[in-house]
């Protein structure tokens, strides 16, 4: 089949929304399909430029494809008789983040009108699709609330998940993801100072600026846990990630209210490791069940410390939760074969 994967992008900003597209392209090609990846630039601000860009998308001619699959907004506006959406988020400042500091334009009558029109256009474009999938329950709920559109959750797998394995359980809890304040690595370091067990912490990844990494190092000193924390602020290769996940005791991932379960928790589950998260982490809670494949702590150092102690002391339970973590992926049907089956149905 000839399949065009359509998404929007910001030139020179990689990762994030591009993974799901590029990985699906590889998987479909492997399965013998002809794949064309169509990335068109999209700028969400100022509000006045939205509509001309939407017009541009209406002019895109992909009739050469048997079907198209659309991801990041406003790619879902591209017309096609067999359009499938795998919707990963709205232009959120006009949707759920309207009443938040992330909206960088004023709440004027003009912008409210733009918002209304945008929602109307989105709803109509979704109506053109044969099927609407989302990457999480959170996004499905937003589609229902704002657009009145029903959708099916199709969890995005990680690329080549068979790379991940377990080589045992040492005394480290690892957190491998971007080093950003909203990922709250600082909370993990604070928690470590409240633990009673000699559990260790390994924080790896890099962020937009070096400041947060430096702050984490200082926090480790301040909390007097520097001898039990490793902070590596740099790009971590896939091989290193596989290696550390294979050996760790458990993984931690506690972003603030994330849309999806997040690739870090998925990767840990493939490596048969329990995942420590918090009650306000959003989509992660779709994957992690407290006491089954990890712990859901309160977002406080004390609560996290208690969970960390349990992970260290009840090692048999921790290992069993690691096994359950992998089983949970099977139960939720998080796999490329499931993705292909649903998208090509």
């Amino acid at each position, binding site marked *: 089949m*000839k399949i065009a994967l359509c998404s929007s992008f910001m*030139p*020179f900003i990689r990762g994030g929304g591009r993974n799901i597209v590029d990985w699906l392209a590889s998987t479909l090609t492997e399965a013998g399909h002809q794949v*064309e990846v169509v990335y068109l630039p999209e*700028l969400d601000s100022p509000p006045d430029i939205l509509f001309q860009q939407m*017009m541009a998308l209406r*002019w*895109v*001619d992909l009739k*050469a494809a048997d079907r198209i699959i659309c991801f990041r907004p406003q790619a879902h506006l591209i017309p096609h008789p067999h359009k499938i959406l795998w919707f990963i988020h709205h232009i959120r400042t006009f949707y759920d983040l309207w009443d938040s500091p992330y909206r960088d334009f004023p709440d004027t009558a003009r912008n409210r009108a733009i918002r209304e029109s945008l929602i109307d256009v989105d709803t109509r474009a979704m109506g053109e699709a044969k099927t609407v999938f989302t990457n999480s329950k959170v996004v499905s709920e937003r589609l229902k609330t704002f657009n009145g559109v029903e959708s099916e959750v199709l969890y995005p797998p990680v690329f080549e998940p068979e790379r991940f394995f377990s080589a045992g359980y040492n005394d480290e809890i690892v957190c491998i993801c971007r080093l950003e304040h909203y990922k709250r690595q600082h909370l993990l370091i604070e928690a470590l100072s409240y633990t009673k067990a000699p559990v260790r912490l390994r924080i790896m990844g890099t962020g937009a600026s070096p400041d947060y990494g430096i702050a984490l190092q200082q926090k480790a000193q301040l909390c007097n846990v520097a001898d039990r924390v490793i902070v590596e602020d740099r790009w971590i290769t896939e091989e290193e990630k596989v290696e550390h996940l294979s050996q760790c005791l458990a993984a931690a991932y506690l972003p603030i209210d994330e849309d999806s379960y997040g690739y870090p928790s998925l990767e840990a589950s493939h490596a048969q490791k329990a995942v420590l998260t918090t009650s306000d982490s959003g989509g992660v809670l779709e994957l992690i069940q407290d006491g089954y494949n990890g712990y859901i702590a309160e977002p406080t150092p004390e609560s996290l410390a208690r969970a960390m102690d349990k992970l260290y002391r009840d090692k048999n339970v921790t290992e069993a939760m690691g096994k359950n973590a992998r089983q949970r992926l099977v139960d939720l049907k998080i796999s490329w074969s499931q993705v292909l089956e649903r998208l090509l149905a």
Partner: protein
Amino acid sequence: MKVLIVNNMAPFIWGGAEELAVNLQKNLVIAGHDAEILRIPFQWEPSTRIPSQMLLARTLEIANTDHVIALKFPAYLVRHHRKSLWLLHQYRQAYDLYDAGQTNLPPGQHGADIRKAIAHADNESFAESRHIYTNSEVTRQRLLKYNGFDSKVLLPPVNDPEVFTGGESDDYIFAGGRVNSMKRQFLLLQALAKADRRVKMIIAGPPESPADTQQLHAIIEQFGLQDRVKLDLRFLPRATYVDYVNRALAVAYIPFDEDSLGYVSMEAATARKALITTTDSGGILGLVQPGETGWRAEPTAESLAEAMSAAYESKARTRQYGEGAQALWNGLGINWPETVEALLK
């Protein structure tokens, strides 16, 4: 610098322009820049939709980009404050092919209006460009004649010069590239029949039609050339093609009146191979200096046979011509470092 290469996308079709864009990207990265390719879908049928697709390109917001290098119509209509063109071709059906009566634009006023819109948009885009380069003298002349813009010819370099190392020669003349009546491989075989019997020949490349294949087999049969000719008629793996070039006694390329030097002859010169061509072959004559880099035969079997025999009779001289061809080619300064430098000026 963050450099965005902007090209067309004919969905599910991959050709020379796509290959060139990828190699340009690769060489921008080698030169220390960040480079990405934006491919804008374009269908020229039905031609009545060309204006909307021009608007599509014109409407996109190119953010987070320091410099744009655009290659084709209508992709080069994108707006950016620092845009240079490396024009592979304009929409010829609105220009020289229109004059030749070979246009796909509708007849009458409608077609005339579309043609005018194309010319206006082109002129505006050319006027706002920082520099305009063309890929051949022919493209330069057309741009000058139809739009009144002068440009500088920037010939596309060999994509992978490092593999054309030359080396020990066998006894065969090599003829590579697409096989069709314009490339006149049949004439090479007719010439071989009249040349020194010790000269052999390899003809390799994808045939345009079954008739082209049949014709070559018929000539081999007719003159009893089976022992002296190898036909390898397919799209060759790059390594196979490179090996044929590197081990050749000399390389023959005798297209009828071609615009460009031709990759085949550029690659042969890189590999220090003497060149055999004909006086009516066009662009390649720029690389063939009689008595220095090869032979300019008349487009007849007799004249070509003489050149082939000469190549065999004095291999020392043939080798010397090969050295000459490489020296002449290198002197043209058609290499990636200088090309990238010009395109970023």
